[in-house]
């Protein structure tokens, strides 16, 4: 449906603008999650259900959890001192309305039966897998090496060593 594409695109742009204008990092994270979910709805509408699921699971799930962990780890004292309360309605009403729009779109897409933009045919996960492990298999190997390098790098930067009785980084 074209209308789903346009509405989800507007939601993504609005959520990204609101993310950039927030002062507190946790509030910005809420809007960033909404922006990623809007892009996931667009992917579903464009006939890419596999990538839409991965967008929700990995981007809005795993990567955002990393962000929330780090922000909570570093900023929680500053924000509670400033009197910012996460449960006050002013914080969640904006992201709540935007994600309610996205849910309504998803229900509409599923209820009308034929998901997808008019001129687009759905590409199944099977085709993606065949392409991924056929001509692009060298890319998979390179991605695995990149992830290993990221793992080693994050561990190297994050580990705290205790040398001669005092704690130090590296």
């Amino acid at each position, binding site marked *: 449906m074209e209308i789903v594409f346009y509405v989800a695109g507007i939601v993504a742009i609005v959520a990204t603008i609101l993310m950039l204008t927030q002062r507190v990092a946790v509030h910005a994270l809420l809007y960033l999650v909404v922006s990623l979910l809007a892009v996931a709805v667009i992917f579903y509408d464009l006939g890419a259900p596999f*990538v839409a699921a991965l967008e929700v699971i990995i981007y809005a799930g795993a990567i955002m959890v990393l962000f929330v962990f780090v922000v909570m780890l570093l900023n929680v004292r500053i924000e509670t001192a400033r009197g910012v309360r996460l449960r006050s309605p002013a914080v969640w009403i904006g992201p709540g309305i935007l994600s309610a729009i996205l849910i309504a779109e998803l229900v509409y897409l599923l209820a009308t039966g034929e998901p997808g933009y008019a*001129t687009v045919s759905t590409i199944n996960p099977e085709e993606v897998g065949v392409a991924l492990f056929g001509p692009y298999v060298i890319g998979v190997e390179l991605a695995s090496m990149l992830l290993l390098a990221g793992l080693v790098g994050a561990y190297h930067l994050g580990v705290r060593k205790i040398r001669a009785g005092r704690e130090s*980084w590296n």
Partner: protein
Amino acid sequence: MELIRYGFLLAGILFALGLLGVLVRRNIVFTLMSLEVMLNAAGLAFIVAGARWGQADGQVVFLFILAMAAAEVSVGLALLVRLYHEYKSLDTDGASRMKG
């Protein structure tokens, strides 16, 4: 044809917003979040092109972008924690005093 026009327009707007965030915000958490928006916009462009020509290649490239974003964000957040413990602030200008 209008799919590719508006799809690329949306990807371009999201990428520009992410770039604006990288340039304008000084908090390093916001810089990393804007980088995520930019990577996501690049992936959206690939998906739109893949949908336009009905090929799976666009989705394959999106998976590579996803893996790259995961590696980037893990290293970036480790650097952020390290920077915060070093300078006690999340200001990127704090790191301009770094030597070597």
